[in-house]
């Protein structure tokens, strides 16, 4: 919704999040049937679901120009728990998928072949897991920064009501 100018979210950050979710669902959970019964899947599904219910309520009410403070508060506060919860679920799921990927050679291609190319999905997944280390803190602290800005701004406005 950010790229259509309907809501003021950054296109880059949002695309990132969308891509990572699509990846978790299709390239990991759907592709590796054996992880579908893991608790970690439940963990990230719950985290994402609650986050999205609040987030879209926030956008809807904002567009209607009638945003209850509770929704704004929830959006900028609950992430403190939901975000790490989601990330833990995601990482544990990828980790659980690893042995099955290795065993089946899933989405991997090895030499020799006529296009002189190789891809090791197992190594790729490990790289993805490592990338959470620099990326997650940045996103998390960005939200904390936003929280400070948005919730203190509301405080000031309340004084004049």
């Amino acid at each position, binding site marked *: 919704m950010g790229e259509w100018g309907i809501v003021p979210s950054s296109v880059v950050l949002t695309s990132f999040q969308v891509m990572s979710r699509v990846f978790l669902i299709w390239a990991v959970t759907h592709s590796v049937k054996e992880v579908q019964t893991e608790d970690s899947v439940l963990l990230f599904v719950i985290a994402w679901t609650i986050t999205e219910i609040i987030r879209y309520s926030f956008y809807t009410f904002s567009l209607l120009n009638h945003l209850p403070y509770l929704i704004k508060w929830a959006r900028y506060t609950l992430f403190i728990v939901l975000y790490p919860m989601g990330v833990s679920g995601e990482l544990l799921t990828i980790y659980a998928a690893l042995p099955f990927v290795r065993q089946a050679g899933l989405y991997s291609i090895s*030499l*020799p*072949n*006529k*296009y*002189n*190319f190789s891809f090791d999905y197992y190594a790729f997944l490990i790289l993805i897991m490592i990338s959470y280390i620099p990326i997650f803190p940045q996103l998390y602290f960005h939200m904390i920064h936003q929280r400070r800005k948005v919730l203190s701004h509301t405080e000031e406005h309340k004084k004049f009501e």
Partner: protein
Amino acid sequence: MKHYEVEILDAKTREKLCFLDKVEPHATIAEIKNLFTKTHPQWYPARQSLRLDPKGKSLKDEDVLQKLPVGTTATLYFRDLGAQISWVTVFLTEYAGPLFIYLLFYFRVPFIYGHKYDFTSSRHTVVHLACICHSFHYVKRLLETLFVHRFSHGTMPLRNIFKNCTYYWGFAAWMAYYINHPLYTPPTYGAQQVKLALAIFVICQLGNFSIHMALRDLRPAGECLQGAGGQLGWVRGSDFLFLPCLPGSKTRKIPYPTKNPFTWLFLLVSCPNYTYEVGSWIGFAIMTQCLPVALFSLVGFTQMTIWAKGKHRSYLKEFRDYPPLRMPIIPFLL
């Protein structure tokens, strides 16, 4: 002659950073930047962006104080562009890397492939040919950087060197790994495919070089231009490379075909140097039949198309009589 006073404020904090009095009316921004450096030596001129409006465009070094829409007390806003590095340094570094790195893989230096392959040589002719082509390409680029190109602007932000080197060095290593791999598979159509692809590569290398020389001869010595974006700027006619960019007339000329047939591509595109560059890499991809090379060509093509479109747009803006048949990078299409 009335003198001007110039005050320089920080664009973000509006703090007064410097006050210059008795500035000549015909002083240029470049000269003002030099004066500003005297009081703030950490902000050398290449790092300074001076503007009339805190959120406005940067003033050019050649702009003359008198000609700006300011009163006799001019207020300029300063923005720190961050640490800068010279274009020449960046280009030499980003091109020397692939040259060296590819050779590490070609000679099968230890720890890349299995130990039994250390320092062995491929039995495929095309692998040796590929090494010659790749090395030639980057040696050509290094020599052009030193003796042909002239970079307007002079510097770019320091972080660009990390970004650019990651791109060039990373892709070079990735391509070189597969082409020089003990399990490399030569092209499906054999010598025929290699010969055709090599011809494409050589023609495009000659073409690219011809365009660089044609651009270099476009302007008389001593003039210089602000290039658009971050790509190779215009080339100066002077044989002396390291003369400072002299302010002067900003007359540009539309590039036209010369007697050299390779330059006839100017009839159809604004940036034939990029056209030939893409062609070279397509040739190399067909020659090695290596998917990573094709991907590298695709990424390069995307970036060069963006640059070509920008250059094309600025040509159209600047010249009323710009040839209408020309496209930015691909004849008739793009």
